[in-house]
């Protein structure tokens, strides 16, 4: 019994490491110039968006969550922050000029998304 619980615990720790740090969620490819992102329940949906380098992309955020967490979206690598209105779209257009992964988050980093520039 004791060894079983220990084994389960260790397996759980490995699973945590694998799920949150090693495995990556599926990415969303953009269709056209605009990607709509739903802001609700602590997550951006979709949260990983792939976009080609040097091409403008418009992200339209639709905020459903009225909690202050969701209020701002920050692209700190691009010096962009925007206040998101509740129940309405807010479009942010940017042109990434270097390949790489750029996070966008809410102020307190509860909402996290990644722009993958390829």
């Amino acid at each position, binding site marked *: 019994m*004791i060894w079983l*619980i*220990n084994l389960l*615990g*260790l397996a*759980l*720790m490995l699973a*945590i*490491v694998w*799920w*949150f*740090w090693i*495995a*990556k*969620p599926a990415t969303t490819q953009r269709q056209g110039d605009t990607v709509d992102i739903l802001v609700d*329940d*602590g*997550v951006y*949906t979709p*949260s*990983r968006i792939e976009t080609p380098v040097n091409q403008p992309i418009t992200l339209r955020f*639709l905020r459903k969550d*009225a*909690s*202050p*967490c969701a*209020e*701002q979206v*920050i*692209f*700190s690598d691009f*010096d*962009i*922050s*925007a*206040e998101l*209105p*509740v*129940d*309405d*779209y807010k479009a942010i257009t940017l042109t990434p000029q270097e390949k790489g992964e750029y*996070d966008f*988050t809410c*102020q*307190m*980093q*509860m*909402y*996290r998304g990644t722009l993958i520039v390829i």
Partner: protein
Amino acid sequence: MTAATRLSISGMSCAGCVASVEQALQAVPGVEQAEVNFAEHTATVEGDVSADKLVEAVKQAGYDAAEMKGQNAEADKEAAEMAHYRRLLRKTAVAAVLGVPLVIGDMGGFLPALDTSLGQPIWLFLGLLTLGVMIYAGGHFFTGAWKAFRVHNANMDTLIALGTGAAWVYSVVVVLFPDTVPSLARHAYFEAAVVIIALVNLGGALEMRARGKTSEAIRRLIGLQPKTARVVREGKEQDVPIDEVGLGETLRIRPGERIPVDGDIIDGHSSVDESMLTGEPLPVTKQVGDEVVAGTINVSGSFLFQSKRIGADTVLAQIIEMVRRAQGSKPAIGRLVDKVAGVFVPAVLLVAVATFLIWFNLGGEVLLSHAIVATVTVLIIACPCALGLATPISIMVGVGKAAEYGILIRNGEALQQAGKLEAIVLDKTGTVTVGRPSVTHLVPAADYSEEQVLQLAASLEQGSEHPLAHAIVEAAKQREITLSDVQRFEAITGQGVSAELDGDVCYLGNVRLMQSQGIDIGELQDRAQQLAGQAETPMYLARGQQLVGIVAVADPIKDDSAAAVRRLQQLGLKVIMLTGDNTATAQAVARQVGIDEVIAEVQPQDKNRHIEQLQQRGEVVAMVGDGINDAPALAQADVGFAIGSGTDVAIESADVTLMRGSLHGVADAIAISHATLRNIKQNLFGAFVYNSLGIPIAAGILYPIMGLMLNPMIAGAAMAMSSVTVVSNANRLRWFKSGAQS
């Protein structure tokens, strides 16, 4: 999803137009319903469609339209926030109604034992009640946690959901199958689950209140924009919504009114209070041809002006945009924390599992309850939000506060650099001095009169655009002197000008110009040096090889320059003055304002090289100058301050733009940077100390020493308060006061 878009429609002359506009709107893909109000000249459109497409459709139908927002958006936002706030309080109340009696019952021993035949059904009932409350008051934590989990993310919801979920599941197992659990560990934690949910909701509500104040600066700026404007159309004045004002329209402003868009005065004159944008306390006189900008207040007269920048192009809109951008940017210190915050929650999960295993193995089955309590407490006490909020919330308040003083900080990096400055280089003209020179002395050489000196000097300079030239021409105009035509005008960079008059080559400029032309200046040299010693700029005037006289021009020092320089020195900065002017004049100015290091006679294109030299000495150097002439030096400096005059600013040019032409702005900007960075560090220190002490204590590290196990409910209270504390600390920055004595 359906969102209502409101449009203002113009050009509808009859009720028949209503139908065609409605049809045009309805034809747009995504529109579910479109309704036009003829009396109000508005349309309300429902459906998932962008306003741009709707406006385009109306235009194609032959009318004009603009999206109406502003008032409504702001009100909607407030209503939504208020509703959320109330919802949080309601959830807190519901959870507390169950939680408080449970805690009292548990502590007072009023509840029956779990493993009795009477106790079991009662506890089962309490467990189901708890589940109901958890779903109502804490359901959002569970949905949030699940959704985040699916995208390989973990956040505060994850921790709360796992913590309270584990407490509940364990309790239910104990109630249903008491025999599977050692008798010492037979305890239910329903009260902990509901109390934690109550506290976290309460914390959320409190944080929301505190946060409202952090965006005060932006709200104040947005509030400067009037909602309507009085337009003169076909000779009639009418009030129209601000979005309907076009370019080149004539607008009427009456005393006490706010100016709705940017434009130039075409009739009348007035004084305008620009303090809300520039921080300049005195109203500015405006007459025909002068620019007025949106958001400023007309103090006295009534005037007409023609709009030239509207919507997102106004100075006000650009300021708002710039402040917004800056508020979202992060200094290096913040980016580092982001990395930590990104891995924080999964790391806490690992700590929680490890905590369980350690207690389980150490205490065996007897201490199973400790293992459960410690695990739940670790999950609950960890607060990723405090860590994530520490930097951005301070930046937001600090940058907003700066904007209140007419200081626009480009980004977090500039803010951080401004806090590290060691030396500050001030351009003289327009920065230390007013920047509007005037002729102070005319010294004729033998055989010439003052009149002749001025006449020749002004004739030479009439084609020049240099500010000194302007002063000379202006002086001639005042004395009603007729100027002669000159040929072959030439500006000699860093020396002066030359031109031909009736076949003679004439020169006006500094010593170097005279020397290079071999002109003897011995006669007036002492007088020139004496003038230079009084902070005036003497210029030699020669016709052919003959010295004609000296024209001395002085640029008055700004009233508050000396006080501001003293403040900069008190901030520990070495203050250096850099100027193209001659050494004697520059030193005289420097002496008057208390600057001890002067670099004079610098060609404009060499200014950035001097900044570079200072940097090579290992100093963090700021440059203060006007955004246009000093652009390369501003770019070279670690922090470039563009000092503006009024609203006439080149917003793009520098790291920090000062809308008010006072050097106090530089001192204020640096003081705000210091205050903001200190605030960030306090927040980060607090968040790190909180988590790095809280988590081990929650894990039970003090138990072997002091026999202390932290109660999960106390952990819930600590967690709820930690992010409120961070926000409140950032809010202290709002009390920053300028050190300027005005």
